[in-house]
């Protein structure tokens, strides 16, 4: 049994949310749905910081490594002298490594986001459930969990 409160007004929605938290409803039982990101929600409901940032970090790091490995190894696989530059000339390779850092970082954070927020969710796509511009608080009761 989920009880659901729907608000037209942002502030009243926040009041209610604060009240619930004050009344000691455990945060993990409260779910809210908002038409746009409401920063205050984050402050009211104690939540862990998003793990997406780890994905970003790992992605970026792997990008850097890949970048250097790729350029260096391919150059060594067939060492051709051009313009007297060293076969492994780091300065140019930095550029490739940098590009890949960004690329991998960005893509893996996106992947992380999809993963953590369970998207794309078929249910979400199919469900007709629709709150429009309303602010919704869903409180699951303790028993069923």
């Amino acid at each position, binding site marked *: 049994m989920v009880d659901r409160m729907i608000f037209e007004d942002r502030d009243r929605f926040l009041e209610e949310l604060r009240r619930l938290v004050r009344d000691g409803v455990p945060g993990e039982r409260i779910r809210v749905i908002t038409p746009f990101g409401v920063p205050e929600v984050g402050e009211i409901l104690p939540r862990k*910081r998003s793990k997406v940032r780890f994905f970003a970090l790992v992605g970026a790091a792997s990008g850097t490594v890949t970048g250097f490995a790729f350029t260096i190894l391919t150059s060594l696989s067939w060492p051709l002298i051009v313009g007297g530059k060293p076969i492994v000339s780091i*300065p*140019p390779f930095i550029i490739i490594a940098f590009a890949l850092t960004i690329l991998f970082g960005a893509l893996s954070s996106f992947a992380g986001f999809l993963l953590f927020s369970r998207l794309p969710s078929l249910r979400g796509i199919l469900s007709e459930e629709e709150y429009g511009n309303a602010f919704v608080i869903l409180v699951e009761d303790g028993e069923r969990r």
Partner: protein
Amino acid sequence: MTAFLEKKGGLAVLIAAAGALLAFVSLGPSPGKAGSLLLAFLFFVAVVEGCIAAAAAGAMVNARGVGSVRKELLSVAPLLLLSSFLLLLLIPFVDSYPWAGKPGIWLRKDFFIGRNLAFLLLAYVTARRFAAVPADEEGTKVRAATYLFVFVVSQSLAAFDLVMSLEYPWVSTLLGGYFFIEALYGGFAVSAILYLLLHGRPPADQTPGSRSDLSDLSILMFGFSLLWAGLFFAQYLTIWYGNLPEEVGFIARRLSTSPLRELSVAILFLLFFIPFPALLSTRAKTNPYLVSAASLSILSGILVERYVLLAPVVRFSPAALAIDFSCLLLVFVAVVYKRSRGSDRET
């Protein structure tokens, strides 16, 4: 000492004394004196102009972090006068520039000294005008902009005239931009240090990660460390790739002999590989130890770099260097200290 500073005009006396001492040293016998003075000059002008520029830039984009140490940053303005005086002391040194004696329109001794001096004084004036109005007032931004303009020109001149033309006919069009970005970078570093000294640790109630003035400053430093690396790389890569002997010589001369090679690497670390990772994480941005470490590494990085830029072409005398530095450092501290005390009393 502090008491003396409290006195009216004490500061002026102190600055004058410092000037006199510096003058004395630079007129003294030691061979490398002029070089040492140039180094000290370049560094301090960068820092001083940087501080004010940081304040001005802060005012432009109303960054709260810089705003909180605005007064202190602006207090160093008088040192610009001292610097102009130092520039005058450098006049005899100009004869040792490679282009000296050759006919030229741009590279002529009088014009050379003239334009640099002019812009130092201009910087002073505009800085004062900017300092005169409180942060939140209407005309501030305009005045800040004016100062920044002068700052850009004066730092570019320092780069192209005082440093680049030491190795005439070598040219790097980027050097000017590189210099004023670096000065600004240093300015932020100083602001961070001042912030920590004056406002101490961040208020306890602050949850880590949430934005504070300090993290504002850290973010700025972090961003600038990237920007600096970018500029450094842009300049290095272009020269490395072009492989034109005339250009490459500039780098090769610094990488071919021992102490300079290591110092050159050190610059990279001090200005990028230390601050960047240090300030990477959100928490670190509010951690006073990391931030101060980063700031100090940045400032020392600038100093080392100025040295590396001059070393192959200029002679130094350790003694003179020591005196020049301690003088300027003392004055700098004194000025800021006094201002901060003043600010305390006001609040």
